[in-house]
């Protein structure tokens, strides 16, 4: 909330933050959304499309600023990027383009890897408003992206925390050599489990957000997105209509390599790849 403070909104003065966390149970967002209406929140900031959709389900007027929405127009949350037109604005992410880049960096870091698993949450995507056909199209695009890099992609669904055991067993039985974790509410709640699993099974893992204990991360700067989100929030609190504020896509990305972890697994990362990283953890 440091950015909001810089924009003139601070807790204890003129701001109250009502934060709620799904902790892997995204069905909780419906209750949280209803609560936001009940307490008459001026605006809701969400970190994911599932939460944003939950708010839209209970109020068609409450302003929403969101980050990490892969395709808000396709999901019917906004009329267009330039002029969302409704109650939602914020920062989208790159979706499959991001996964392509993550796979490309994995390949550069570990050239011998050919079998990569992607762990996603189709239920989360459906909950954001996309259709089953959209989910299938996204998965097909992801598979094609991997194939173009000479990789075979195994796509595993973790729609709830209870799917973890089956997914981790499948990863081993299908001999995945590396793992890409999608940024989903469920994977976020399973972060410690995934981290321990990756370490125990010497499985190089790529995630979107750095600082989560994985070997690689590539994604938009989270701090940058939160800063931008604070600016949206301040504008809307000051009277701007969310539908008039264009939805942005992130412009700054960070590639982080945990070299210490790679060495512990006996892996050598090419110097050329290390040079591409914004940060190398020794």
């Amino acid at each position: 909330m440091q950015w909001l403070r810089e924009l003139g909104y601070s807790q204890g003065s003129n701001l109250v933050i009502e934060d709620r966390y799904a902790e892997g149970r995204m069905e909780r967002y419906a209750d949280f959304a209803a609560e936001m209406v009940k307490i008459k929140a001026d605006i809701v900031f969400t970190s994911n499309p599932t939460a944003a959709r939950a708010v839209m389900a209970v109020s068609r007027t409450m302003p929403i600023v969101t980050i990490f929405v892969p395709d808000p127009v396709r999901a019917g949350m906004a009329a267009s990027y330039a002029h969302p037109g409704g109650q939602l604005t914020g920062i989208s992410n790159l979706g499959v383009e991001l996964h392509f880049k993550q796979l490309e960096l994995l390949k550069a870091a570990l050239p011998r890897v050919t079998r990569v698993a992607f762990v996603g949450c189709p239920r989360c995507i459906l909950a954001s408003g996309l259709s089953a056909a959209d989910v299938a199209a996204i998965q097909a695009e992801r598979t094609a992206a991997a194939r173009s890099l000479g990789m075979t992609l195994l796509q595993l669904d973790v729609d709830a925390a209870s799917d973890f055991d089956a997914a981790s067993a499948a990863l081993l039985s299908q001999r995945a050599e590396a793992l890409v974790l999608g940024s989903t509410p469920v994977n976020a709640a399973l972060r410690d489990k995934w981290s321990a699993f990756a370490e125990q099974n010497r499985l190089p893992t790529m995630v979107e957000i750095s600082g989560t204990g994985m070997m690689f991360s590539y994604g938009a700067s989270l701090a940058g997105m939160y800063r931008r989100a604070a600016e949206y929030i301040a504008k809307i609190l000051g009277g701007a209509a969310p539908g008039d504020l264009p939805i942005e896509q992130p412009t700054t990305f960070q590639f982080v390599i945990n070299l210490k972890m790679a060495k512990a697994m006996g892996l050598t990362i090419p110097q050329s790849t290390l040079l591409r990283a914004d940060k190398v953890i020794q």
Partner: protein
Amino acid sequence: MKRREALLAPLAIGTSMRAWTQVPGRIYRVGYLGFTATNSPADLLV
């Protein structure tokens, strides 16, 4: 690998948005719906 995506330029938010105005004395209530409490904006930024 910090880079600027030229293709995204048309999407850049207009910086000439009308001035923000706070109502003196008003308490603003902002909801935040996140993944996990260990990955909150407060954790990241404070």
